């Protein structure tokens, strides 16, 4: 009967264990309470056609994705976390592992170009989305966000937050290998 008094203590202990576990998962980047699944997962990427950041006369849009597995990275010069992931994208671009397309989101052309000038340009092309309208179509709710688009132009993954080497190896690499082995 005395064991009854241990019940609250046991519940407390279990909660401490749970919180400790979840905090660890958050620190390790395994779990992000703010991460939302994309409503567009496994659906065709929303079509768009925007001026190229470097050359307004050219356009960047959905046709660029067809026929290859590619990354679509939403970035802005005002975004702090974009600076965190940028060196890794530079590395990725140098290795030529996968083409990276950019969506310059709610930025000014001058600021964006200066940013690329200073830090380097890992993008095959960047679309210039000044009003953030294409961002809404893609369900973007924070910058940076990175999408994996398959050969057929479908969104296969959405990752909010900075892409680091660890994140890349754990979440992107296996998926990309799988997408490349798919018939398409």
């Amino acid at each position: 009967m005395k064991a009854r008094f241990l019940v609250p203590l046991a519940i407390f202990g279990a909660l401490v264990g749970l919180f400790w576990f979840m905090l660890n998962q958050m620190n390790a980047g395994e779990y992000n309470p703010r991460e939302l699944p994309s409503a567009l997962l496994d659906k065709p990427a929303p079509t768009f056609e925007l001026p190229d950041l470097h050359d307004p006369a050219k356009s960047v849009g959905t046709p660029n994705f067809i026929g290859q597995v590619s990354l679509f990275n939403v970035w802005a010069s005002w975004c702090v976390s974009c600076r965190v992931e940028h060196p890794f994208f530079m590395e990725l671009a140098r290795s030529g592992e996968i083409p990276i397309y950019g969506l310059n989101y709610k930025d000014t052309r001058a600021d964006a170009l200066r940013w690329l000038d200073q830090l380097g340009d890992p993008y095959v092309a960047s679309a210039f989305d000044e009003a953030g309208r294409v961002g809404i179509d893609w369900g973007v709710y924070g910058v940076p966000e990175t999408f994996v688009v398959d050969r057929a132009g479908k969104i296969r993954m959405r990752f909010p937050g900075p892409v680091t080497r660890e994140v890349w190896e754990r979440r992107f690499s296996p998926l990309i290998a799988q997408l490349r082995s798919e018939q398409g």
Partner: protein
Amino acid sequence: MNRGRALLLALLLAVASVSWAAIESFEFDSPEQEARFKQLSGELRCLVCQNQSIGDSNAELAQDLRREVYQMIKAGQSDAEIVDFLVARYGDFVLYRPPVTTTTALLWAGPFLLIAIGLFFLLRFIRTRVATTTAGDGALSAEEQARLDALLQNSAKDPRP
């Protein structure tokens, strides 16, 4: 004097226009449209702040979504069309009142489930309480009576102030 007043008026108007610019002003064709806008922006969740509606939030995305909702209302789209538009992009998370599906069933049923569990334990507790207090006729057993007498005697011998 007149000149001074005119100057003051001009100054006040200038200040007023500045403060107006800080607030977004949407113009609607009818009070009914405005009511729909208020209703919708109160029910749609801002994805950035996650605990505010797009009507309450000052996040850039919330401003964009308000503008988007406003334009769709002006274009004569129904509430259902506007909600579908946003759900297609952001998922059910954008709704403060998500539809009842298998994944949200627990969310909707949870409070009632908790009340039911609470009631069950409360009733059980009351029943056992009633059962123990009304067990027997309330008379003391011989043993209890002896203990009571002993206690009363003790306190009679040693009256404490």
